[in-house]
């Protein structure tokens, strides 16, 4: 084992590998920071380059893009209020208010450190417990997946903002939008009205970019002139307090570890990954907080939960891939392809047959997260310059990036019309004070819930199986508790409001 470890380390610490990894790290961070550009895209672009590299070298470079990508999304989330990637939706809730509140340096530092610790924790779990965790993950059938999604849907209650009613409506709109297009099991068209635009359905990333980016950018345009911020949101002197923030993150150990564990768990389940993990981690942090009313206003706990949660899915996603050769996401599938091209079969015997490679990947994860940290800390000042640029330049630039990114996802022109239409819907909803996160959650979870429900009933035409399989039953019970808890806290909040302002109605 030590031999394999050293052999792996030897390859990762080669000078050229480290240089390529550094480039990969920067590329991942930048790609993720631009709304509309995704980590998957950055990794596809690196795939042909790795054909010419050694297997471990190629995978190390891809891992550094991957790890950088899970962090980069926080930059636009914090500074622009637009999630750079689907996995940084929850980061906008608190990092953006914090940045607007005059602490952009702190918001970024918090996110970067949380991402770093999240990746490290997930890598440790990956090293220590990959095979048993992968075996558990593989045993989960459609029943467990469906129950998990039911549980995940209940977190809408944490994301609703001012009004439970409007939050639920947004969630239902999201679930509805997800039904447009080919049905996930048979590919039969639904609600497409024979139009070419709707035939491929509403891709979730198009909805995400449309809903968040377009509405946010239009909001900025509308806002201009009214609030005298001169475009620059940040006071002249920016304090990063890198080390102080590191301590601050470590002062929230429970949140950090809980969020990372959620990230690892969700990451290990093939399907949704980072896009759910950040929201679940945020929800759990809010519920167990003593000051849940601070969430959404710029609390450090919110930033830590979201960023640790999404970064931990990086290690989590590798668990089924390294232990069993089963990809957890599109990114993992590309990583596997990069290995297979070199004649390495990825499967349950990878750790036995190619131990140096497996250990090398573990080392590469750690190195990649260190690189991400260094690159982010050094370049943060540069990123903050973004906020100095006057709005008339930044808004159109970001808009163009969104449109290019939306096109590059599937190379479909019709997606751009969808983007425009969804952007208008998002802007309308935002103007009417509807929360947008539940809508996105509905779009992500709807198809997964449908697929697994149908799959479960095809496997066993009996509904009671959902309650007799233990993990499924536990998840459904958790969902029920979650709903009860939410209703109670809403009622409590209402009572409180009534007591304070008797004449004002809660909602």
């Amino acid at each position, binding site marked *: 084992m030590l031999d394999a470890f050293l052999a792996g380390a030897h390859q990762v610490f080669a000078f050229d590998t480290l240089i390529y990894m550094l480039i990969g790290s920067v590329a991942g961070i930048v790609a993720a920071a631009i709304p509309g550009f995704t980590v*998957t895209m950055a990794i*596809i672009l690196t*795939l*042909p380059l790795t*054909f010419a590299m050694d297997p471990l070298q190629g995978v190390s470079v891809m891992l550094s893009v991957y790890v950088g990508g899970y962090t980069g999304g926080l930059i636009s989330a914090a500074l622009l209020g637009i999630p750079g990637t689907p996995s940084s939706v929850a980061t906008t809730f608190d990092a953006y208010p914090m940045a607007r509140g005059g602490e952009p340096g702190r918001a970024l530092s918090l996110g970067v450190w949380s991402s770093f610790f999240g990746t490290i924790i997930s890598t440790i779990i990956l090293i220590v417990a990959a095979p048993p965790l992968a075996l558990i993950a*593989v*045993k*989960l*059938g*459609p029943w467990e997946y469906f129950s998990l999604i039911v549980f995940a849907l209940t977190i809408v209650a944490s994301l609703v903002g001012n009004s439970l009613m409007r939050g639920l409506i947004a969630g239902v709109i999201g679930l509805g939008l997800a039904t447009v*297009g*080919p049905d*996930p*099991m*048979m*590919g*039969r*068209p639904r609600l497409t009205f024979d139009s*070419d635009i709707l*035939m*491929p*359905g509403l891709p979730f990333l198009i909805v995400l970019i449309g809903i968040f980016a377009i509405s946010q950018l239009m909001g900025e345009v509308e806002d201009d002139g009214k609030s005298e911020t001169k475009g620059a949101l940040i006071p002249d002197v920016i304090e990063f307090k890198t080390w102080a923030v590191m301590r601050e993150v470590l002062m929230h150990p429970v949140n950090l570890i809980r969020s990372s564990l959620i990230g690892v768990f969700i990451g290990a389940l*093939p399907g949704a990954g980072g896009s759910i993990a950040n929201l679940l981690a945020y929800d759990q942090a809010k519920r167990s907080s003593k000051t849940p009313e601070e969430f959404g206003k710029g609390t450090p706990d919110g930033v830590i939960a979201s960023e640790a949660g999404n970064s931990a899915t990086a290690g989590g996603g590798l668990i*089924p891939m390294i232990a*069993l*050769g*089963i*990809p957890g996401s*599109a*990114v993992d*599938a*590309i990583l*596997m*392809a990069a290995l*297979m*091209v*070199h*004649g*390495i*079969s*990825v*499967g*349950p*015997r*990878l750790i036995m047959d190619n131990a140096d490679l497996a250990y090398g990947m573990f080392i590469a994860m750690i190195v990649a997260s260190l690189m991400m940290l260094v690159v982010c800390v050094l370049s943060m000042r540069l990123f903050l310059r973004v906020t100095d640029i006057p709005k008339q330049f930044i808004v159109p630039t970001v808009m163009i990036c969104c449109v290019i990114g939306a096109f590059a996802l*599937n*190379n*479909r022109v019709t997606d751009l019309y969808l983007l425009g239409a969804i952007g208008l819907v998002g802007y309308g909803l935002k103007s009417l004070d509807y929360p947008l996160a539940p809508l996105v959650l509905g779009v992500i979870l709807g198809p997964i819930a449908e*697929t697994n429900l*149908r*799959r479960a009933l*095809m*496997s066993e035409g009996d509904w009671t199986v959902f309650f007799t399989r233990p993990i499924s039953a536990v998840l459904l019970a958790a969902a029920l508790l979650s709903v009860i808890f939410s209703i109670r806290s809403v009622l409590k909040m209402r009572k409180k409001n009534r007591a304070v302002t008797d004449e004002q109605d809660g909602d």
Partner: protein
Amino acid sequence: MFRKIAVAAGLMAAAIAGPAQAQDYPTKPIEFIVPWGPGGGSDTQMRLVAQGLAEETGQAVPVINMPGVGGNVGLAEFAKRPADGYTISQIHEGLLISNGTGITDLNWDSFMPIALVTSSPQYLTLSKNDNFSTFEEMVAYAKDHPGAVRAGVTLAGVPHLHMAMIEDAFGIQFSYVGYEGTGQRIRALVGGNIDVAIGDVSSAGQFVENGDLIFAAVGMPERTAEEPDVRTFKELGQDLDLAVTRGVVLPKGTPQDVADALEAHLEKVMQNEDVRTKIKNVGSEPVFLGQDAYKAYLGKLSDTVNRLVGKLAG
């Protein structure tokens, strides 16, 4: 970046040069529309072919992923592209099934099939269970308990066709559970959530080696080099050809001399040892069937699909 500049420069040069003559085809980059998402079998194999083609012709061959509706979105777009040989695409068995089940109006003869380039042998794979551990036991069990054997397939997809062919040939009946892609099916098979599935060496080989899964039969005319102990369906009494074959197509109406030039380039690519090894590494077989042989193959396949399509539409 460098590549993009190269592509842009190539496009500009082509614009200046005017319409290309077939004898020096290609004179500018060839866009390769892969109608599937990145990371899958089609994507990986076609990227290798594209790389070989770029080396062979000296022109860039950028791969454009255009996924959606089982490959039909990309192919619909491809069908509208100019038929000049500078946009190529790829089809496999899935197109014929989509056509048969009415999802798309396009069929293999809506395009000009140029060359079949890869063929992935498919194995009937069994999970470890108490009821059967060989092909014969599975058939006997399925005959005694019709519908009790759960088969994981992509509904109305290639694995579904393959399973329907097995049902048809051996007179048995499965109950189908829908999964997306081989990875998902193999996971469900290892987890015991389904009983049988179509798998391949790259996704299931190591589980078989480990004893977690069983390869019961292979759908090739002869036993494969990777799994010499696995019997063919022919040996088991029925001649079934279960492979996923991928070939390059041009839009209909492309000049015949351009088609011939592309065919000749692809033939050389498929003799390239580096390309061959890498395609084998990702679990497929490099092959080459030219225009006529490929058309004949697709025609025969089309008959099979049409015969079994009733089973797939449900």
